[in-house]
């Protein structure tokens, strides 16, 4: 059963995944070229100074691309299910609704994590190539909130698509927008790290929220 669900999600996602991967790698590549150009145009030590002491995050272009990726992947998974009420097919499969939702989300999040991991590897390697290891080491704590924002964005898109009433959709949009904006707050590297133990709680809350929307979706006409 799980294999079948993964197959279905894969079939829906694969072209979007390729597209997102291409976009993400493209932006990563642009980051690499920008850094390279900056190092050539200015003195390397000045770029280092900006990255270390002025807290310039030279790879911050990727953050909204990561969020967009999560939104696109969630939409790619759930919009086809909404069109023509196709979700009814899955909801009738001999598997519990919550398990169905879990595995569907897991597949989407797995692909999203894969893309983000590729971003991190690319950015990390770029930074490591041009900067000392300390600068590369903060890539992870700096990018982690962006990834978490993506996970929240993914859950938000899923919830909002599954919701059956406009008022709830609007309310959830506001709530999730605030939560996502929190993950993008601050400036410079590692700024949000002290808040991560608190903010990480938003992840299980966001993930769990989807099940209530899915229940309402099924029991209110799917």
């Amino acid at each position: 059963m799980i294999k079948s669900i993964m197959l279905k999600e894969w079939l829906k996602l694969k072209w979007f995944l390729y597209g997102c991967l291409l976009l993400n790698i493209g932006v990563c590549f642009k980051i690499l070229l920008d850094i390279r150009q900056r190092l050539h145009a200015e003195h390397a030590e000045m770029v280092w100074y900006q990255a270390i002491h002025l807290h310039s995050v030279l790879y911050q272009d990727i953050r909204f691309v990561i969020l967009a990726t999560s939104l696109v992947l969630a939409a790619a998974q759930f919009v086809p299910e909404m069109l023509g009420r196709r979700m009814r097919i899955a909801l009738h499969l001999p598997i519990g609704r919550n398990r169905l939702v879990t595995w569907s989300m897991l597949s989407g999040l797995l692909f999203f994590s894969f893309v983000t991991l590729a971003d991190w590897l690319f950015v990390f390697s770029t930074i490591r190539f041009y900067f000392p290891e300390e600068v590369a080491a903060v890539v992870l704590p700096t990018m982690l909130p962006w990834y978490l924002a993506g996970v929240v964005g993914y859950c938000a898109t899923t919830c909002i698509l599954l919701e059956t009433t406009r008022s709830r959709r609007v309310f959830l949009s506001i709530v999730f927008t605030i939560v996502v904006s929190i993950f993008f707050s601050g400036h410079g590297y590692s700024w949000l790290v002290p808040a991560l133990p608190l903010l990480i709680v938003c992840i299980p809350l966001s993930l769990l929220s989807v099940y209530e929307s899915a229940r309402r979706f099924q029991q209110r006409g799917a």
Partner: protein
Amino acid sequence: MFQQISRISILLLSVFALSYGLPGLFDKVFLHDAGNPLLFYSPLKEQFIYRESLGGHQFNYRDESGTDYDRAGFEAQLPFFYYKNLEKKKKLPVTVQGQFFDKKAIKSGKQGYEVRSRHLAGNYPQIALYPLFNNNPELPIIPFPEDVFRFTDKGMEFISADFNRIDSELTASFTAALAAEGFSFPATAIGGKTTNLKPFDEGYFVRDSKGYIFHIKRVLNQPVVVKTPISSELDVVALIISENRRKEFYGSILTRESGIYLIGWNDYRLLKLPVENYDPRAMDLKLLVTPLSKTVVIGDEEVVRGTVFDQEYTKTREYTLNRLDRTPALIRIFRQILFPFHISLNDPYRGKASPRFTFGGLWSLLGVVVALVTFYFVPKRRNFKQVGLIDSLVVLLAGLYGLLSVLMIRRE
């Protein structure tokens, strides 16, 4: 049960988001951003004089005794800070407390030294790589070095920015010089100014693993290392360097026991500033030196406190200014009623996220009661079971946030 957990999750997420977003929005619209009051000691009045922001570029200029000034009157009381006004009016030299001061005397006797909590190690994310400026007396400017250094367990390592590689030569010479002075690796605190926008460079003050403090400079690309006589017993929080032409002190050492010690020029003798109740981790400190006196101003979100010293750092006068919230009382009460608590990540004394949970105040209790009453009396609709224990609890604990959440995410 699982469905209930899922619904509670949305409620919690929504309460969290609203308690972060709504007060922030409210403050943006209604609150007066007062900014920091400026507190000075006037040698003419021989009392403190200050400027308070009323919001919207409006200011109050007042002294300790309650006399109000206009801007020009305020500046006139501070001849050492606003000497350029006097210069324009050709009123220099000026006589203060019976002494004559010309422009040169004022400039050379004046120093501003600031220790901002958000710039202390640990209060902001910091990558421990620093530029060590090369002192070359023949050059009129301080060029930026093409490398940065780090301290490891084994030595002081230099990494060349052009090649992103360790510069073994520099590394070896500095490590050897440090070792020769008895430096015990690694470093436990590093203080220095990483900018070249300064009149001269005094390198870094570095505390070794045994607590000894070393003064490290680079002169003509060679290490100059001094093991200072500063006690290794000090529980150092941070080393803040000042590179000022007065050359009275190198900078200061902040310790965990709320002490601030100035490091004397040349002899590295420590001078404890007699400032009480100063917590460097949550307060900003300014030392304003003028040719006649020295003023230390410390401040947090509640008060700004000034202490004046004579040239020998003997306390002569003290003044505490309470920071006033200029927001109309009604708006403040309304804010308390609306918001039982507020979650925020920003802290003016931190350069990093600092999660804070702030209770609204006594009026918030009224807000919670109003929210509960509203919750129980909102018209019932078919399909909805309105009053449940969990929902009541959410409204009780989260007031307006809870009310909005349970009304939008209704129990079915």
